[in-house]
């Protein structure tokens, strides 16, 4: 069965064809017993699932959900929407270099991003957690920074929503300081799930205000699940951008955020030879915005 036949069956089932195309497709299917059998089997599964009623929450679950969200979004106490505007992000990241140092966080590099439409060019620091954390991550080398081959053979990877929507991803996976979900980071996963984890900017901001140790704790918590996004399109693009004759570089997302309306991802690049550097790219286009590349 060809890919064309495969598409034909799916289009027939999902009504993606004009009446003429549909007639032709049905004739094609009817003329081939294998195709006919596959079509009927697929149609049966689809119909079986389509007929299932939609699940709903109970009244108690609904109430609990909304109450929890109202609390977490501060909707009851603060009428203003609990959202992070880029300006706020910029405000608290600008002095974060000093804070990060106080929090025993090693500042990687300061990147000056080009002006992208506003008069305010943004300066921010991409921090890397201290060496103990780094060492623990190195222990889980099979999920490390080098981009592996995606195992979803015929499929194109997803550019993650989280990256595109501009959350700040904190530095590294702190295997020894966070929960067991990260402690298992060295286990190889049979499924390369495309995702960049969410990081709560509000929480990081609050912890920043509280003090260095709180900030460090929150940073470590925020590092949960942070790992290379091996299957993302941006990853492939970065590999192409940062390719080295000596081999593939090790890539690691250290931060992401919206800057003047542009979703930016900051990646630490460690070439097989030479010094590590940071590169900031547009998360949507992979266009290089800034780099500390020598």
């Amino acid at each position, binding site marked *: 069965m060809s890919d064309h036949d495969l598409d034909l069956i799916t*289009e027939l089932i*999902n009504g993606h064809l004009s009446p003429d195309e549909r007639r032709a497709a049905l004739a094609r299917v009817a003329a081939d017993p294998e195709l006919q059998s596959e079509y009927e089997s*697929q149609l049966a599964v689809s119909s079986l699932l389509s007929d299932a009623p939609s699940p*709903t929450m109970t009244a108690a679950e609904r109430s609990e959900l909304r109450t929890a969200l109202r609390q977490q979004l501060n909707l009851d106490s603060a009428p203003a929407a*609990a959202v992070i505007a880029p300006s706020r992000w910029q405000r608290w990241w600008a002095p974060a270099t000093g804070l990060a140092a106080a929090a025993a966080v090693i500042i990687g590099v300061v990147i000056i991003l080009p002006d992208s439409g506003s008069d305010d060019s943004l300066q921010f620091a991409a921090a890397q957690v201290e060496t103990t954390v780094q060492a623990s991550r190195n222990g889980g080398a099979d999920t490390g920074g080098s981009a592996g081959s995606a195992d979803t053979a015929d499929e194109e990877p997803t550019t993650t929503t989280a990256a595109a*929507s501009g959350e700040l991803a904190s530095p590294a996976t702190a295997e020894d300081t966070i929960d067991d979900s990260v402690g*298992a980071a060295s286990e190889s996963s049979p499924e390369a*799930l495309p*995702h960049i984890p969410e990081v709560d900017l509000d929480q990081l901001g609050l912890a920043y205000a509280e003090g260095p140790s709180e900030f460090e704790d929150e940073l470590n918590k925020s590092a949960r699940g942070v790992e290379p996004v091996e299957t993302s399109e941006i990853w492939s693009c970065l590999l192409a951008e940062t390719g080295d004759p000596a081999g593939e570089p090790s890539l690691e997302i250290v931060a992401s955020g919206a800057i003047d309306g542009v979703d930016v991802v900051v990646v630490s690049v460690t070439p097989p030879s030479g010094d590590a550097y940071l590169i900031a790219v547009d998360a949507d286009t992979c266009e290089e915005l800034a780099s500390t590349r020598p």
Partner: protein
Amino acid sequence: MTARSAEDRALIRRYLEGDVEAFDELMRAHEDRVFGICLRMMKDRDQALDATQDVFLTVFRKADRYKEQAAFSTWLYRVSVNTCYDHLRRRQRKRTEAIPEHLDPSDPHSGDVLNAVELRPDIETALAGISPEFRAAVVLVDLEGMSLDGAADTLDLPIGTVKSRLFRARRQLAEVLGNFAPGFEHPREEP
């Protein structure tokens, strides 16, 4: 633009202006469908509720970044699928995936799960047995009734990839569930 889509945009604007009522209206409009996607992706009701909460937390916190070129629902369901991927990955890491062959009768939620999903247990198990990416395609198209284009937008994938995933997912489901020969009748669960 559909009426729902226009209404969602207006509600998001109101929410960003601090109108808490807009939050409730958006929740009313979308919470069941998001929960439905999460439940069918996660299978476990409690985990689906957790994922649903995370979805809305993300969406409301990032509401100012919603780009109105796309329908709000597309963005919302994309966040939903990605959040479920994340939860599934965490679950897998904790080695508690254990999508049960049978539900523990001592679990007070076990009946709820079946009632909520309203699928035959063998279909649920078959669904849980395919990869999350394949499952997402089937959940959006077959269970949520999304068009191929809509699913492609939601999953941020080329339509050809969605068709491929859908085809392969259905084939795997058919193999697990047995022979769907012509004339096959699909017995429904007794209420």
